[in-house]
């Protein structure tokens, strides 16, 4: 029985607040697709996991090392973001610690023409889509509200309002269908869209509406819910009583739960869903079963609401340790390789830090730029008045 399969029939009626059922939130249950166990050993392929396992057969050691490299570097991007916030260089940082495999697996499964619609924690997907990590910092430093060119890497701006981007993804995917960019059999043309949100996000109206739209339009979209078990202070049982992957069924398309700490599984399952979408077979909902190891953001204090035993249990499932153990056992990596990646991570961290510290403050007149695409009288008047007022302070 999976941990979230609760919904007990005839349970005692409570008057409002409810007792969360006893559950083991570290166990993804028998439906969860997994290829690497927590200790890094390969899990036997079953009839359920077989369709996904096929994707792993194509992968050679070189590519596997690439997965681990991504995991390590993405973690470093994240820890650098965290450190920069603590040093006052960033106003806020939402950490992805623990969710690297969920994101790298999904990101690696995407093709360049596939489009990602992230929330605000998808630093690993951004990495895989080739977005320079420095680009992510401006928003958290307060110099812009996004700032990168989404179309340069097919990675949309971060979306802070929970759920909004899920509908954007579906609409984009509807456009892809209309353009005939699905089901042509041309690997460079057929396009899919990925929409990312958290477990809390599944409660939003926008999320549920996006499932409706995707279903009735057969949109080439993959919904990717990272169930990290917490929406700030609220555990899963405040957001749903059946796990997110099972919701897809009610909307009329497949839902899959995958071990989000197993990069091979998240990669294979996402590849499968993206292939379906690109082939014109419609949406899929993937729930990546994972855990938020740190605070929600740097403003949060998880000691107020969660117990450390839970965190410890998930530490034992660390996505990087797991992949490292696997590749070592395979003889695909050795100490020298790890050392080299660590050195690369150091360099990356230095680069990010320098970029952050030397990021210029935008000139204040820029506030009035880009409010409208076409000239707007009020803005022009205000910009002029602002310039005039500011010049009064110059000597």
């Amino acid at each position, binding site marked *: 029985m999976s941990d979230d399969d609760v919904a007990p029939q005839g349970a005692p009626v*409570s*008057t*409002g*607040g*409810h007792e969360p059922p006893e559950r083991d939130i570290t166990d993804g249950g028998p439906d969860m697709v997994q290829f690497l166990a927590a200790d890094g050993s390969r899990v036997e392929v079953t009839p359920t996991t077989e369709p996904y396992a096929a994707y792993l057969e194509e992968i050679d050691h070189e590519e596997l090392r690439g997965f681990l490299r991504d995991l390590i570097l993405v973690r470093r991007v994240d820890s650098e973001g965290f450190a920069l916030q603590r040093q006052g260089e960033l*106003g*806020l940082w939402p950490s992805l610690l623990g969710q690297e495999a969920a994101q790298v697996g999904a990101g690696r499964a995407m093709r360049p023409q596939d489009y990602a619609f992230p929330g605000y924690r998808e630093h690993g997907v951004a990495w895989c889509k080739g977005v320079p990590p420095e680009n992510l910092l*401006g*928003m*958290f*430093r*307060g*110099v*812009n*509200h*996004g700032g990168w060119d989404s179309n340069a890497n097919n990675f949309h701006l971060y979306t*802070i*309002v*929970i*759920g909004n981007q899920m509908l954007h993804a579906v609409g984009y995917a509807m456009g892809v269908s209309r353009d005939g960019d699905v089901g042509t059999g041309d690997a460079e043309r057929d396009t899919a869209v990925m929409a990312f949100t958290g477990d*809390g*996000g599944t*409660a*939003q*109206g*926008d999320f549920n509406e996006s499932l409706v739209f995707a279903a009735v339009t057969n949109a080439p979209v993959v919904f990717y819910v990272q169930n990290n078990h917490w*929406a*700030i*202070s*609220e555990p899963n049982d*405040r*957001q*749903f009583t059946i796990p997110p992957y099972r919701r897809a069924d009610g909307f009329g398309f497949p839902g899959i739960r995958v071990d989000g700490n197993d990069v091979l599984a998240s990669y294979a399952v996402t590849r499968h869903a993206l292939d379906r979408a690109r082939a014109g077979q419609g949406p899929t909902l993937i729930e990546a079963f994972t855990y938020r190891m740190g605070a929600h953001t740097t*403003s*949060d*204090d998880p000691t*107020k*609401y969660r117990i450390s035993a839970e965190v410890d249990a998930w530490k034992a499932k660390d996505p990087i340790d797991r992949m490292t153990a696997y590749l070592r056992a395979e003889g695909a990596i050795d100490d020298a390789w790890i050392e080299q990646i660590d050195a690369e991570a150091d360099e990356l961290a230095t680069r990010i830090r320098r970029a952050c510290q030397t990021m210029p*403050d*935008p000139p*204040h007149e*820029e*506030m*009035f730029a880009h*409010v409208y695409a076409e000239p707007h009288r*009020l*803005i022009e008047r*205000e910009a002029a008045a*602002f310039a005039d*007022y*500011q010049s*009064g302070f110059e000597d």
Partner: protein
Amino acid sequence: MSTQTSTATRMTIAKALNAGMRAAMERDPKVVLMGEDVGKLGGVFRITEGLQKDFGEDRVIDTPLAEAGIMGAAVGMALRGYRPVVEIQFDGFVYPAFDQIVSQVAKMHNRSLGALKVPMVIRIPYGGGIGAVEHHSESNESYFAHTAGLRVVTCSSTEDAYWMMQQAIASDDPVVFYEPKRRYHERGVLDLGAQGGALENAPHALDEAVVRVEGSDVTVLTYGPMVKVAHAAAQAAELEDGPSIEVIDLRSLSPLDTEVIEESVKKTGRCIALSEAQTFASITSELAAYVQEHCFYHLEAPVLRVGGYNIPYPPSRHEEVFLPDLDRVLHAVETLLAY
């Protein structure tokens, strides 16, 4: 101003709001709090801290992350006889609930020809100046003031936070209660001495404007986080033997206390409407229009609006020039006096 007596305590606006909710919950078992993270965490600003511990999960409800859901469910609970106090986590996240608020919350009483009441409080931490990311610093009070059927109020002091929260909860109308987040941690005096905590003895009615600083040359009409700025401008002007500025804290944005406004402007002859919000089609627009319509023959100069520019709330590195400060208020004062 209250004086320090044995019954007076100094506390932050945050604590006063908490104390106000606590008093309301003790008084009326039908008062329930709802919102994201309001329980164990006590809200991201800790305004509901400790209340779930003392009143239980049935009265302090951690809701799903769904603003339309929170608001619509609160309507239903109000129809069933409860008094929900709903927390919207940040100003910029009220929009998913906008439809429920303007289509249902605001109109239920009117549509039922007065038969139905939806007594609820919608708490919104609002305004900028805290260095936050996008959607965390908006002043969207004008949207709701524009909608008939809602009362819209905001506080600027510890005393108001305490009393207004209770009055809002006790009101049979839906009240949108804007909490000035950048003032949460400012301290003021709460003196329950004479009032003994009884709501009937609150120092002011919920919809009353209050003169915070008396002056004779220019009236500044303002509210919420800007009251402090206006106060500082009045002090600065006084220190420099400049013009005498009267500061009016509107407290209630819908309805406006027009008597206090008119009385002041007729006395000073000059008026500034000051707010953090963008000025176009806003509370400050309404104030300017109202004053011009009703105090025309008393005015020495046009009414000036001072507020945020008409752009999306900018990235935090622009906040210092986006938010009206002392200089911008004094600049407006000078402009008025030059007429």
